[in-house]
């Protein structure tokens, strides 16, 4: 599903050039659950942003579903992204002004789904995440675990092929964190590919494979049994 080759990304300030990704290559197959680990500043987030088509690489190739997209412009990437990828963040990134229902509905609006279909699908996914009773609440009124469930609901409501999760349990206690990991595992078992960045060895054990990064390069891959 994903194949990246010799990917490079630099960050420049006036004085320093930092190499975030250094000729990184990796492959992720459809249906896999991959965890990316590494210390702060190793390039995890950069990699996730590029995989999620939020950022473009400076060098190298990125083939998504057989299409080279490294040099896609913003509009093409956005188009590909909104139909194929769901995001889950550490800090949830829900919009404070919108209710639970409206937050989850948002991706459907942007992909042009009809209103009645939207209601159906949002209710379906809220039900699945067991937060239906909270549909008219605002994010501030929810616990962290509930907020992350809303965020996951929002990420999957469009039925993406790929979910990118950036430390999804980072802001949660262990019990809520486990719930979230169970949810992701369920999704993966139903066929969704998941790539997750995490600091937690515990969370990483939910995955099939762990890729460890250091200074923008792959240093080790562990296959989980």
């Amino acid at each position, binding site marked *: 599903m994903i194949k990246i080759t010799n990917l490079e990304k630099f960050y420049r300030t006036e004085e320093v050039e930092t190499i975030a990704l250094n000729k990184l290559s990796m492959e992720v197959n459809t249906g896999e659950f991959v965890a990316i680990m590494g210390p702060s500043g190793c390039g995890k987030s950069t990699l996730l942003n590029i995989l999620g088509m939020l950022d473009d690489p400076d060098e190298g190739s990125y083939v998504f579903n057989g299409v080279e997209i490294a040099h896609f412009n913003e509009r093409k990437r956005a188009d590909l992204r909104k139909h194929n990828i769901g995001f889950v963040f550490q800090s949830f990134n829900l919009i404070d002004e919108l209710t639970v229902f409206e937050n989850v509905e948002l991706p459907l609006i942007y992909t042009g789904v009809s209103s009645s279909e939207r209601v159906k699908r949002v209710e379906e996914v809220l039900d699945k995440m067991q937060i239906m009773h909270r549909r008219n609440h605002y994010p501030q009124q929810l616990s962290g675990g509930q907020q992350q469930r809303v965020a996951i609901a*929002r990420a999957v409501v469009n039925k993406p092929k790929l979910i990118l999760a950036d430390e999804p349990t980072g802001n949660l206690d262990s019990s809520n964190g486990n719930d979230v990991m169970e949810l992701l595992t369920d999704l993966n078992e139903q066929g969704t590919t998941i790539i997750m960045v995490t600091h937690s060895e515990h969370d990483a054990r939910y995955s099939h494979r762990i890729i460890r990064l250091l200074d923008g390069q792959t240093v080790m891959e562990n296959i989980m049994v």
Partner: protein
Amino acid sequence: MFKNYLKTAFRSISKNKSFTLINILGLALGLTTCLFIVFYVVDELSYDRYNINANRIFRVNEDLKLGDNSVQYAVAMPPLAKTLKAEYPYVEDAVRIKNAGATHVKKNNVNIIENRLAFADASLFNVFTLPMISGDPKTALNEPNSVVVTESTAKKYFNTINVLGKVIVFNDHENFKVTGVIKDIPNQSHFNFDFFLSMESFPDSRSNEWLRSDYNTYVLLRNKADSKKLEASFPNLLEKFSGDQMKSELKMSIKEFEKSGSYFRLNLMPLTDIHLKSTLTGELGANSSVQYVYIFSAIALFILLIACVNFMNLSTARSSNRAREVGVRKVLGSPRKYLIAQFLCESILLTFFATLIALLAAIILLPLFNQVSGKEIAITAQSLIWLTPLALAIILIIGSLAGSYPAFFLSAFQPIDVLKGKLATGFKGGMLRNFLVVFQFAISIFLIIGTLVIYNQLNYIQTKNLGYDRNQVLVVKNAFELKDEASVFKQSLTQLPGVVNATMTGFLPTSGWRNTRIYFKDANLSQKESMFPQSWEVDADYIPTLNMKIVAGRNFSKDISSDTSGIILNQAAAKFFGFKDPINKTIYQSKGGDSKGERNVNDYHIIGIVQDFNFNSLHEKIEPMVMTYGHNSGAVSIRVGTSKIPALLAQIKAKWKAVSPNVEMDYSFMDQDFDASYRSEQMIGTIFIIFTALAIIIACLGLFGLAAFAAEQRTKEIGIRKILGANIGAIIGMLSKDFIKLVLIAIVISSPLAWYLMHLWLQDFAYRINISWWVFAVAGLAATTVAVLTISFQSVKAALANPVKSLRSE
């Protein structure tokens, strides 16, 4: 502590350069505009106050009503001044001024036409403060053929101000001796003359007639004298002095005269009211209107408010950025009042810079403003006396006013909330801010509508069919100089190719020549059916030359000798007399009673009706007027049928030279004269446009800032939305929507208000446009467009930003 405020203030100001720039520029722009308006208003209010006794000087006005006609005069009867002085001990002095009109003044054998001459009584210098440089103010105007000139006139004619005893020749043959030189009269005077000729030189001034009014008469009351008391005694005074004349002229007593519904009354107008409140018949010069003082003051206030609102809006919008500072200060023990002081300090500092810029801009742009407003305002050491405290007051008042809301708003934050980040949503809940944006745009839209209406009205004036054709008409204004040769001159012009027609008379729709006479419907001269119309002497070429239209009967004809007693009425006059078929009816005119008491009546038979034409300004309805057939050489008007005007003009000048080699021909084009009479409206229009533009610029500066902060506040939201698939258009729409809503509300609020006020303004014109719906549509569209453009600059920037960046800061 104060040092700390100042330091933080300076750092905060210099850290947010763009914010500071927007804030200072907006405020400076508003202040500059206000300063100009203050200059203008101060200048308008200072008229005639150069007179030391200004509050004791009054002009005697006369109200006359004859049948259905009423006129208010700025002039009074010839013997009134001396009578007032003789009859009332509390009248310290009285003076008459009589405009002498255009006069030739000889300089080195060349005649120069001067317009600023007046006859004045010797008491002139007792009443008005006109400091004399040389000569004796007590005696200067005592003798006949004495003249007092201003300093610059002396220099103009003699290149020196030592001119006592020198002789000035008026109209080629009248020799006047210079008996005094006065300082130039300040611009802020309702009369402005260069020559004062002694009243004794004007024989008519000794007239004892009480039934005519043609002398501007001023009284100086003694200290603490009551002007109301003097006014109250006027009816008795008139009874005493004019009663007999009334009896012999009109064969009735004043009581009977008043019983018939007519009256003539005198009243007093304070000298300092004249410039702004007086537009009577017989003014010594064009006066202004207090209405404009009010309008401009209101606009100044509005613009200042818009600028202050910007300040408040931007400061509170920024509050979330400052919230952490407030929280830390509070945690460290700063009481609330210190924080308030700190924010006020900051805003006063900003206002200080803005005021400096505004003062500088005002000084630099003053010549431009003078050009637009037609004023001659100068900033002198004297104006600094009121300008400096004003500037300080502005800095303190505006600074604290604009800073007060942010100061109290920010200092009220609870430190725990702030540090926990609960105020990260500082932009929301801005009801007041929304209200202020609506307020700004309501004012801007109001000004746009005002400008559109004024321009429409001016355009209407320009294009309205006036009943005569003012284009392609050359007016030779001083044909009266030619005396008997005038007819020869006119005749010679008609032979020139390119001259379509020519008429000789001073009475023109665009000239100052006016003459009112009383006409009666019956031969007994019954007051009840009298009319008080303009009565103009014209020739047979008048109506064709000015392309007027005869709607009934015919024009005067050279070949019909009885036309000398013929008369042409305009439609208004015909209607006034209520004739069904006016042609060949007769109307009458009194020749004035003779000593034997016999009635001496002229009769005029109506030969034609001319279509109504606007001979007064379009502020006034078309009044009755009549034309009689006669010889008046006041001016020659020439209808030109060629585009080669310069060549034709040269030929006309040559014809003039042939009959009058010594006098220059004074001419103008009728359409230019027409435009000149609407100069004050044109000026208002221009000033309105400038103010509107400024108000919109200032409002947009504020909106620009707000949009920037809105985008900043919502960076995270924008990022999330983009990740979820929002395209750029959706983001721009989302950001603009909130502001557009506010602008729409502003349109709804300001439109009815603007309609009402502009409707009132239009009431001043007897001939006016209707305010049509598209004015509001255009104003709304313009405001919305400007707002959208302003906002979209920020929105597009926000929408294009990479979402990764906004989320990375989490």
